[in-house]
């Protein structure tokens, strides 16, 4: 298996890079923001442990592993270590990423399961009817540690105004109706959007 494993690095900027693996890494979506949080998920543990990596976030979604680091070292150096961590983990018998244990309700607010239900309802009742006007839809992938993970599709995928829809629209609606949501993460592959509602063209 390992011989045929392909890993492509797609840097977003000097701090963030998406690694696309030729086979699924994890069936769902998980986001880790510290080495402590990564305990029990060998892939995230290994990536946080990269010497000099200064990794601050690992997000695993399907075939994608997105790594954020604080350092300004070029990805060509850190990327090799991330690639090695992915290969080593997938070679092992233990699942690369453990399923998230939903955060229970506590003094800081409702648990992730309860938030998921409320966000899903809001998406169905408010968000999707709005984006549908431009031929788009928004899929709720997960809620972890009060962070909403979503994917955009249809006219939203690759749309020149997708980040406005996300940051000014969806985040605004969430802040209004479900202020317990801490952040929103978009895991859409916008580069593959072939039918965006607004296509960029002006210089």
């Amino acid at each position, binding site marked *: 298996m390992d011989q045929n494993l392909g890993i492509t690095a797609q840097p977003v900027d000097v701090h963030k890079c998406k690694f696309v693996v030729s086979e699924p890494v994890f069936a769902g979506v998980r986001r880790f923001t510290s080495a402590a949080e990564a305990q029990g998920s060998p892939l995230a543990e290994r990536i946080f442990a990269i010497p000099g990596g200064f990794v601050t976030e690992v997000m695993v979604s399907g075939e994608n592993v997105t790594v954020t680091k604080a350092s300004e070292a070029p990805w060509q150096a850190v990327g090799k270590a991330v690639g090695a961590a992915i290969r080593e983990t997938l070679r092992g018998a233990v699942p690369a990423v453990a399923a998230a244990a939903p955060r229970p309700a506590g003094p800081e607010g409702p648990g992730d399961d309860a938030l998921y239900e409320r966000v899903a309802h809001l998406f169905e009742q408010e968000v999707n009817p709005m984006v549908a006007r431009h031929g788009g839809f928004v899929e709720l992938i997960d809620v972890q540690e009060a962070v909403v993970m979503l994917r955009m599709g249809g006219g939203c995928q690759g749309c020149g105004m997708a980040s406005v829809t996300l940051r000014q629209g969806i985040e*605004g609606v969430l802040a209004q109706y479900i202020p317990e949501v801490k952040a929103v993460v978009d895991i859409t592959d916008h580069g593959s959007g072939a039918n965006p509602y607004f296509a960029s063209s002006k210089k």
Partner: protein
Amino acid sequence: MTRPRLLLLLPTATYRTTAFIEAARRLDIPLTVASERPSTFESARLDTLVTLDFSSVPRTVDQALAFHRDSPVTAALGVDDDTVILATAINLALGRPTNPLPAVEAARDKFLQREALRTAGVPVPDFALHDLGLDPATHAGTAPYPCVLKPLRLAGSRGVIRADDPAQFVAAFRRIRSLLQGREIRDCGPAGRQLLVEAFVSGPEVALEGLLEKGRLHVLALFDKPDPLDGPFFEETLYVTPSRLPEDAQRALAGVAEDAAHAIGLVEGPVHAELRWNDRGAWLLELAARPIGGRCSAALRFGTDITLEEVVLRHALGLPLPSLTREPRASGVMMIPVPGQGGMLRGVKGTERARATPGVDDVVITATGQKLVPWPEGSRYPGFIFAHGARPEDVEFALRAAHRQLEWELEPLD
């Protein structure tokens, strides 16, 4: 204390949306985004979104002020030639320090700009304005050959054609007239009924990125354009900084850019200038009161990894500016040329190989599923390649090597 809110004017077709939105997030600046077409979230009545009539300056100002009464904004910022004028008018109405309106209008209109520059003694090519309704043969006899024919308003060298003799002049004239009659750009108004003819200036071309603060020009970057831009069309390809021109040439180019800004009357905000250098010195070709276009700003980092958009947002709100010194490494971007005769872009192979090219930071394909039309009629790049290196020549090499890896799947247009 309430944090200052910025009204960001984003046309729906701009490439720059994500860069500005994410810069505002990093700086924790509250934003209201204004566009010319309604957002999907319009009905949610959020104070983060508003639709403005970008086709009319007075209407835009009225609408912006009406919005401001309910949801106060501190300042407005435009990101392209047209929205910069609207933002300036809004800032004047809000009483913010900004450019005079005639200055930003002259920055958008190639003829007004050249007149102001010539009057002020800034080196510009000889030029003349021609009416597109007249027979081109009547103009062809008086043109200075070689010359360049340019629409007054279009950006990104769209519609710009070189002519070396009267026959080429007539052909170029008719081609631009046909382009300006197209449905997509009919809204150029009176500027769409005229074109500019100017003497061709030989020599290497550069792009200067700058920021004006109380009339003083901070040079943020000077990009070489290593592909010769000698025509007949002038599609942009490579931008590499720092410039490899001699220091005295770079100083002269920056001096002419600053003189041009003063001549037009610009005193605040980002500027992007196109200049040429030859044995007669520095020449100003264009000066725009906006930051660099496309996704090219991603090639620039300042101080501690600050983006150009962060610098521009801070300036717009009057926040303290960070170090404006560009990172020490050489950097560059390729605006990927439209392949062959263009067509409907169905896919691109080889992007992984291109990304793996040493020195390459990223390859971004932005036009999958879109119609690609070659210059001079076209205005959409298939995508962008970004690279860093120890020296500018390393960056240029990396960009060209990565580009060679790309294979295009294009469906012919009807």
